[in-house]
């Protein structure tokens, strides 16, 4: 429904142009919005007018008019001003308000449509009928992008995103929970994942700079029809979860680039626990100190090159070899060989996943 703030903005603009003061009240005579110089009308007069069959009424220098919403009375508009054009302007104001009601209703309907679409709550036939009614093209390339905003209920972030992504460009913003904003991003024929990556990075940087909030973004694959958007949404959600566990340093995560993390995420926890026990026994990676974890990480990043890793860690080669052998003693894995390095890499990722499951 159209908010009182929007109604106030509308009547203030009219007052600035015409010098006529306005009040807008609901059918029970409660004040919804009024311009700065407007006098508050008598409540009984307003409710009496609301119940009457007439469309308009003149009381002293005030004009009472009805604002309709699809043949139902929505508001009473009172225009106050001793000008010959007061009634005419009041009619214009009624027209404006009725248009606003229609626009906001449509906006709400769109929001509702996209929310249900993403959550798989619509039948195929409903998607077809409702999208047609709401003038939403069906066969357009789109992808879902989620922005997870850390600061609790930060309205500035959502408003900034709505400034960047507009319905006119075919984009749509909605929310299905408190901490995230969902962007339905439409794409041109030649645009691909590099564009999505750029859009996500730009939006994250913008929210960091302007709203000063911690944000992470994830996006799903590009789909060609409305009915497939829920898949893109599920992928984006998974990318967000998998990214949080395995790629904590990344602020933008693409479903297409989750790699082995996605595979691990989909494994049953019992299987993961069994695997961890097989590899580490009782000495789980959480027991490893930062030094050994950092050594392993660097060693993998340098493609198992001892000299380069030692150089980067500013340690003597022998120190690094000693650390690797110490790890071998506790795990039985010699990470200088590809097989064992791969096993440890997967085991560490599975272990990170288990920790996340325990945390939840």
């Amino acid at each position, binding site marked *: 429904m159209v908010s009182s703030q929007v109604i106030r903005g509308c009547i203030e603009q009219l007052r600035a142009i015409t010098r006529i003061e306005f009040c807008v009240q609901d059918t029970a005579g409660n004040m919804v919005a009024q311009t700065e110089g407007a006098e508050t009308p008598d409540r009984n007069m307003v409710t009496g007018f609301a119940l009457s069959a007439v469309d308009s009424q003149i009381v002293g220098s005030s004009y009472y008019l009805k604002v309709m919403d699809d043949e139902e009375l929505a508001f009473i508009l009172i225009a106050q001003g001793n000008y010959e054009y007061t009634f005419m302007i009041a009619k214009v104001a009624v027209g404006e308000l009725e248009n606003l009601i229609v626009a906001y209703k449509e906006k709400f309907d769109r929001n509702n449509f996209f929310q249900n679409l993403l959550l798989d709550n619509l039948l195929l036939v409903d998607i077809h009928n409702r999208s047609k009614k709401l003038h939403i093209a069906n066969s357009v390339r789109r992808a879902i992008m989620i922005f997870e905003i850390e*600061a609790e209920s930060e309205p*500035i972030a959502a*408003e*900034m995103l709505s*400034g*960047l992504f*507009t319905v*006119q460009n075919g984009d749509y913003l909605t929310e299905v929970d408190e901490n995230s904003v969902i962007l339905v991003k439409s794409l041109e024929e030649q645009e691909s994942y590099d564009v999505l990556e*750029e859009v996500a*990075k*730009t*939006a*994250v*940087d*913008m929210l*960091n*700079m*302007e*709203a*000063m*909030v*911690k944000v992470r973004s994830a996006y799903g694959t590009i789909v060609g029809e409305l009915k497939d958007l829920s898949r893109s949404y599920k992928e984006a959600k998974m990318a967000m979860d998998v990214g949080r*566990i*395995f790629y*904590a*340093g990344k602020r933008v995560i693409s479903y297409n680039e989750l790699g082995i993390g996605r595979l691990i995420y989909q494994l049953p926890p019992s299987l993961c626990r069994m695997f961890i026990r097989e590899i580490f026994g009782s000495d789980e*990676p959480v027991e*490893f100190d*930062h030094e050994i*974890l*950092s050594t*392993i*990480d*660097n060693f993998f990043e340098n493609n198992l090159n001892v000299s380069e890793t030692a*150089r*980067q*860690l*500013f340690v*003597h080669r022998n120190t690094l070899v000693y650390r690797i052998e110490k790890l071998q003693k506790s795990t039985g894995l010699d990470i200088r060989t590809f097989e064992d390095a791969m096993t440890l890499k997967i085991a*560490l990722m599975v272990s*990170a996943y288990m*920790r996340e499951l325990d945390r939840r």
Partner: protein
Amino acid sequence: MASLSLENVCKVYPNGYQAVQNFNMEIADKEFIIFVGPSGCGKSTTLRMIAGLEDISSGTFKIDGKVMNDVEPKDRDIAMVFQNYALYPHMTVYDNMAFGLKLRKVPKDEIDKAVKDAARILDLTHLLDRKPKALSGGQRQRVAMGRAIVRSPKVFLMDEPLSNLDAKLRVQMRTEIAKLHQRLGTTIIYVTHDQTEAMTLGTRIVVMKDGIVQQIDSPQNLYDKPNNLFVAGFMGSPQMNFIDATARVAGGKAYLDVEGQSIELPADKAKAIIDGNYNGKQVTFGIRPENIIEVKGNKEAPYAFESTVNVYELLGAEVFLYFDLGSANITARVEPTTKVRPGDTVKYTFDTKKIHIFDKETEKTIAN
């Protein structure tokens, strides 16, 4: 007015990866600090910890003596300009700059003053009514900066703000940022991987690698007195030449033996070799391209090397010659009047006062 203090600041991600290790630094008010280093070195992570966009794993960060570790980003009185910026396409320049303040319910007259002041500083006054599509790349970047300036923060944080611009515009905007620092008189921390930007803008530069601070110093000192081989190689373009050599001490003097020739070291460098017991040991000897001297005609020199020039590059005011000395690829910066061309043999010597010597194993500086 803002002074910043970072004490043993570390960032460790949940998977154990240590992105920043024991970052220690005091930043005085109005300083222009540059964080520089290759990608993945932890410079942006440090900046984001200062902004509050990343949690600090351990250590303390203070602004004006007040601990900021748990203070929300919006309450730190800082403003940020990042690499990716977007302007609201349907808003004018004025509205783009005012939008953030409007959302924060700042009174209209205060917004108006802040926007007009920022526009004057950034020379955008005549563009305030334009929409973003009618602006050039540089003008858009200035609007993005304007959005940070209108907040009148104590500290500006900039993360590679110029990296999306073309080369010409980058140079132009670099100058603009330097001017901006003078006009605003606030503390700026600027992240870049471009060492030219670092050298030209910073009052002090922090060189980082693998999450570890390598050196904090003035641009000149970093160039002249690098702490280690990494800093020596990272600062300067073309980069410093590195040549394997053997240190030798004889008769109270020290020499570097390179490709069958002996280079006698000046007294201060000789002392470092002798005191550090480097006699007979392998060291890395570094020389900047401009400290390689072409020996013309039959001029005498205590030692001289001869190499065949592989590549000749004329840059107008200077010429770069590329040749090999043993297994090392050498770049020399010489006068544009040189007659040497690819295939010619060039005779050259080194300015021994400008030689840098590094420990081969630890890569730390022995003498500058």
